């Protein structure tokens, strides 16, 4: 049914398709999980996945509901500017391919902290790495869980806050179950199943759309422009961003954060440890690039297709506004069945991404904080896994509470912010420690905390928090920084901090023997 307020399709059917996904994935998770009692099993799935499997799993981990519903909707409503997201998200993988994946695989074992602390003083650097991992994971997770509330309203027809809270809790509990029962192995299979469903779903929709327009992109674009309030401008840049000089700068800042942040997201980094060696890590990225190229190219067609067949006015009039473009289009071309599939895929997407974030955050706490800071050399693998599981339950609980509280808030910017954090705290330190001999412990701490606090301060004093109609706080205006994305300042600032922290520390010399060891290990995998 299409109602005045939105689309719900057939909520029963949507729920059934989603329930089928949950049952199938839980069965797979149960079947593949051995007892997961060692750290290698729980954190890295025994490093036994192949590059192609991991590449698909990376795709599943990386493509959030924001990239599926958000980008398609942005293209349908704002036109070309939505496409810029796709390009940023995709090109970002070259950083991972060329500078990060293989070196990180060779150097570390389970977490980003392993790489960063390799030749530095363990405790302070691991504490910094864990702080950054937890902050980024929680921000990213909050955005996903808050989005779940909107999706529930849109697709299951649950409009009261209590009912939505119940569904968010349900989603959170299933996610915790995946992580507890399956560990990294089970979670990886959830990502693989979800990625396959998502990519297949968008490809089918794309082929259908193209067929409808006689495989002529040009006539699809014509029809999209014809049915949009923007008209021809739908096909040109500038629909969403850059009506003012500040807006233009803000967009450049966002673009930088996107391409420099992706390769430094902790849950992406952790995926490289699920394969046996650097060659497979490289193959993972190659597969991920192929799968994502297909996905992002398809979102372009789906976005413009939604404009052509549904029209921007109907999209904006529905409950989910932009986010409902893809579901509305699915209903238009495939009726309630396709809508049910798209709804289930969107839920599966949230579930899988949150599971990946939870296992990463819990691994970072158990491995970096508990095993290496609190009890260095005094704990065993089984105890560490127990701590990781408990942490996963706590983090899962926090994400449920956060998701319920943030439900209905405009928190989609948190995803872009998580990218800015990753680019400003993790990428600088990773690149310096892999490529710069003199980089030392003080440099690491300066770059990490400098980048993180620069981001936090800039966001606090940005229009995101106060001083604009869409701000989180109303009534007071303490905004001093005009941009909503801090990347353009905070990324260079973090690199500068890392440089200054290193050259200004007189007593803290980099250990040349350790540096040689790390360089050999990062390039050859000897000792890994």
């Amino acid at each position, binding site marked *: 049914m299409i109602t005045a307020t939105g689309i719900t399709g057939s909520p029963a059917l949507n729920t059934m398709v989603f329930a089928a996904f949950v049952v199938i994935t839980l069965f797979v998770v149960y079947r593949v999980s051995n007892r997961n009692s060692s750290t290698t099993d729980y954190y890295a799935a025994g490093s036994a996945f192949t590059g192609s499997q991991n590449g698909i799993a990376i795709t599943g981990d990386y493509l959030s509901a924001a990239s599926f519903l958000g980008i398609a909707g942005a293209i349908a409503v704002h036109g*070309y*500017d939505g*496409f*810029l997201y796709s*390009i*940023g998200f*995709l*090109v970002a*993988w*070259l*950083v991972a*391919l*060329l*500078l990060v994946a293989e070196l990180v695989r060779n150097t570390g074992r389970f977490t980003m902290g392993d790489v960063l602390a390799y030749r530095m003083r363990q405790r302070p650097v691991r504490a910094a790495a864990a702080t950054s991992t937890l902050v980024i994971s929680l921000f990213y997770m909050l955005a996903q869980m808050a989005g779940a509330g909107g999706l529930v309203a849109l697709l299951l027809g649950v409009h009261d806050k209590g009912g939505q809270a119940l569904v968010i809790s349900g989603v959170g509990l299933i996610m915790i179950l995946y992580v507890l029962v399956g560990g990294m192995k089970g979670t990886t299979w959830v990502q693989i199943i979800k990625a396959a469903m998502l990519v297949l779903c968008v490809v089918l929709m794309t082929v259908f759309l193209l067929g409808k327009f006689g495989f*002529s*992109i*040009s*006539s699809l*674009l*014509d029809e999209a*422009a014809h049915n949009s309030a923007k008209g021809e401008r739908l*096909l*040109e*840049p*500038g629909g969403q*961003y*850059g009506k003012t000089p500040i807006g*233009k700068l803000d*967009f*450049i800042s966002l*673009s930088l954060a996107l*391409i420099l942040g992706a390769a430094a997201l902790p849950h992406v980094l952790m995926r490289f440890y699920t394969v*046996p*060696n650097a*060659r497979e890590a*490289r*193959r993972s*990225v*190659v597969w991920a*690039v*192929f799968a994502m*190229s297909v996905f*992002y*190219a398809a979102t372009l067609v789906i976005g413009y297709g939604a404009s052509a067949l549904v029209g921007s006015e109907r999209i904006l009039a529905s409950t989910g506004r932009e986010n409902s473009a893809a579901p509305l289009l699915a209903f238009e071309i495939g009726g309630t069945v396709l809508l049910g599939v798209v709804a289930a895929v969107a839920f599966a997407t949230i579930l899988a991404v949150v599971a990946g974030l939870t296992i990463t955050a819990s691994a970072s706490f158990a491995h970096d904080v508990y095993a290496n800071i609190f009890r260095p050399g005094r704990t065993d693998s089984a105890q560490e896994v127990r701590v990781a599981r408990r942490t996963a339950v706590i983090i899962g609980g926090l994400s449920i509470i956060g998701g319920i509280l943030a439900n209905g808030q405009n928190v989609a910017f948190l995803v872009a912010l998580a990218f800015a954090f990753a680019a400003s705290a993790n990428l600088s330190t990773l690149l310096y420690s892999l490529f710069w001999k003199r980089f030392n412990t003080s440099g690491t701490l300066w770059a990490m905390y400098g980048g993180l606090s620069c981001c936090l301060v800039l966001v606090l004093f940005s229009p995101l928090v106060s001083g604009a109609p869409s701000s989180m706080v109303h009534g007071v205006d303490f905004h001093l920084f005009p941009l909503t994305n801090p990347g353009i300042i905070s990324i260079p600032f973090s690199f500068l901090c890392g440089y200054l922290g290193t050259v200004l520390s007189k007593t803290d010399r980099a250990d040349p*023997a350790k540096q*040689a*060891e790390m*360089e*050999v*290990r990062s*390039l*050859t*995998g*000897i*000792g890994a």
Partner: protein
Amino acid sequence: MTDVAPLPTAIQTGAPAFGGIDRIPPEHPENARPDFIRIHGSAEFGELRHRFRAFVVPVSALFFVWYLTYVLLTVYARGLMGIKVIGSINVGLVLGLLQFASTIAITIAYQRYARRRIDPQVRLIRARSGIADK
């Protein structure tokens, strides 16, 4: 300290201690800590590092500049991006799809380069250091 000094020698020469039961298993190259300093100083490793950086550094710079150029064009050269090329397909869309194409091309090029120039060198260094290839 002096009284325990002979023990390691006895083990190194393979002489059985305590009635034929070795307390420390004989050293295999697998268990030995690799001599990272020696490997780091070797010509083979210098060559590997050179080959790796010779691809990675210029190509990273290239795609970063190309991406930034594209972003700056979409922000500051809208007139140019709106020019139609074929039908309703404009310069902006073509350049955007070229970003896709260049990403895929660089990915394939790097994979080929790594297979031909990096992996064999890694195998060589690992073999010379007596470490099995994984």
